[in-house]
């Protein structure tokens, strides 16, 4: 086995439990949404939803909005959980002193940085596949025809935020010499994620004077422009009735997300390589 392969093999064994637990949590999360959707279609929630009277365009928009909230919330949630990389190996390397010992081994800093990058890439691929599965199942249950381009952009933005948080955090983690410093670095990661997601929330709630409301089939609805959008809907990328004010943001960011993720992966490789070369007193 090449050096990179054995480092990957080592990483796989150490992080297997952590990755499995994360996957288990994500699958449960998906199942929760699928069960809610099934309940709406054939279960207890079906009665509650059928009791809603849709008398005008505004009612139709709100009903469509609820369906979309369920769908897109699951898209964001699944993208968020599946695009998390586990830090198990890095943390255990510090705790077992492997980090120091590894400097006595004939493996290069490039090999060490590549392991992190490959880990990130496989996580993104896994996230994409699980997100596709979720979209197919959920939209089938809810009989929605989601805008595939928009859904992909939404996924890509969430993955971009997680990748960016890792890009900023890895240097701190790679610099950590003990458990305390690793904990501090993971805390920094949480802060970075909060700042990033809050920034997105701030950006997508910018007022938009001309909102175009579309129904589930994409047909324009005649809804007054002074319709009050409830605050909880601000962050939701509504492609149908109420999502237009944030669609522009995701249109732009969604297109930029993939090139940005690739750029972050490449930059991360060089930064992590430099960090892996450094010796600390």
């Amino acid at each position, binding site marked *: *086995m*090449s*050096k990179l*392969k*054995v480092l990957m*093999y*080592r990483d796989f*064994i*150490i992080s297997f439990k952590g990755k499995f637990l994360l996957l288990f949590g994500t699958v449960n999360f998906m199942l929760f949404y699928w069960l809610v959707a099934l309940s709406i279609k054939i279960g207890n929630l079906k009665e509650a939803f059928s009791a809603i009277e849709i008398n005008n365009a505004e009612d139709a928009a709100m009903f469509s909005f609820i369906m979309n909230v369920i769908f897109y919330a699951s898209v964001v949630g699944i993208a968020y959980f599946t695009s998390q990389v586990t830090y198990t190996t890095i943390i*255990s*390397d510090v705790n*077992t*002193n*492997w980090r*120091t*010992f590894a*400097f*006595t*081994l*004939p*493996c*290069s800093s490039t090999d060490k940085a590549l392991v992190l990058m490959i880990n990130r890439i496989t996580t993104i691929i896994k996230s994409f596949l699980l997100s596709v599965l979720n979209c197919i199942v959920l939209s089938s249950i809810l009989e929605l025809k989601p805008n595939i381009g928009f859904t992909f952009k939404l996924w890509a933005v969430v993955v971009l935020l997680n990748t960016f948080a890792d890009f900023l955090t890895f240097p701190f983690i790679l610099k950590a010499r003990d458990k305390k410093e690793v904990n501090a670095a993971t805390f920094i990661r949480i802060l970075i994620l909060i700042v990033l997601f809050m920034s997105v929330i701030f950006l997508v709630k910018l007022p938009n004077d001309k909102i175009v409301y579309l129904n589930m089939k994409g047909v324009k609805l005649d809804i007054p422009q002074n319709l009050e959008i409830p605050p909880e809907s601000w962050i939701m990328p509504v492609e149908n009735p109420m999502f237009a004010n944030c669609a522009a943001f995701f249109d732009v960011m969604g297109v930029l997300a993939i090139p940005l993720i690739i750029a972050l992966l490449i930059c991360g490789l060089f930064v992590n390589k430099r960090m892996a070369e450094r*010796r*600390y*007193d």
Partner: protein
Amino acid sequence: MSEIFENAIELKNVTKKYDGFTLDNINFNVPKGSIMGFIGQNGAGKTTTIRSILNLVPIDEGEIKMFGLDHKKDEREIKERIAVVFDELPFHDIFNANHMGKIFGGLYKDWNNQKYTEYLDMFQLPRKKKIGNFSKGMKMKLQIACALSHNAELLVMDEATTGLDPVVRNEILDIFLEYLQNEEHSILMSSHITSDLEKIADSVTFIDKGKILISGYKDDILADHSVIKCTKNDYKDIDSSDIVSVRLNDFGAEVMVRNSDEMKRKYSGLVFDRTTLEEIMVYYVNKSKKEWR
């Protein structure tokens, strides 16, 4: 093809400054084909010196060569040819001996899986038991099995035998002696258990407070030092320039001197005892106090 270098390790004027501790102008060599004991009390600078040799910490001044190669510039090549054993096992608890064989097999060009298996059998280490369930002795044996299975020319050990029971320590020391049967192999072994080094070391370097006190062949050092057991009155007749330091007790004084042969002629009426590495270390550590109890 055998390369031409006399010393497996050469340290020239190595200095490393920390806040509150300085590794001060360290000079010593580990001759090829020999085992050097690196002795000092806790905090004397043994680990810092070893970390500097391995380029785990950057040095401030000086030059370090291994197999005649620069320890920074030729780091990759050097690390193919060395093996390092730390006092604590740096392997994750979840692995077993088979996993470690696979990992090291991929990392070293000259990994010999048959040799590794032989060591596992010799040490009676289970293949599939998780390392987390190993005893301290088993962990150390596993680390040594990994270290000796890639035909390393130099074995660097930092307090590797500390915390092990005498039976395991003896087993391990025998393995090192076997390893040294190959004349291309060398060992640098730091320890504060001087009895281990007394058994197997060819040369010894004493370090204290970041400074080298003595460095040379073990037999020469032992022959060069003696302890004079005498009364307090007799002790007053010994020139202070001849004394390393003096241990006082209720019955008299134990005076360590250098240049044993010369001292025996000079103080022919006194009783000279052979000394041990441990005594030499203790007397040198207390050199600044001159007299101690």
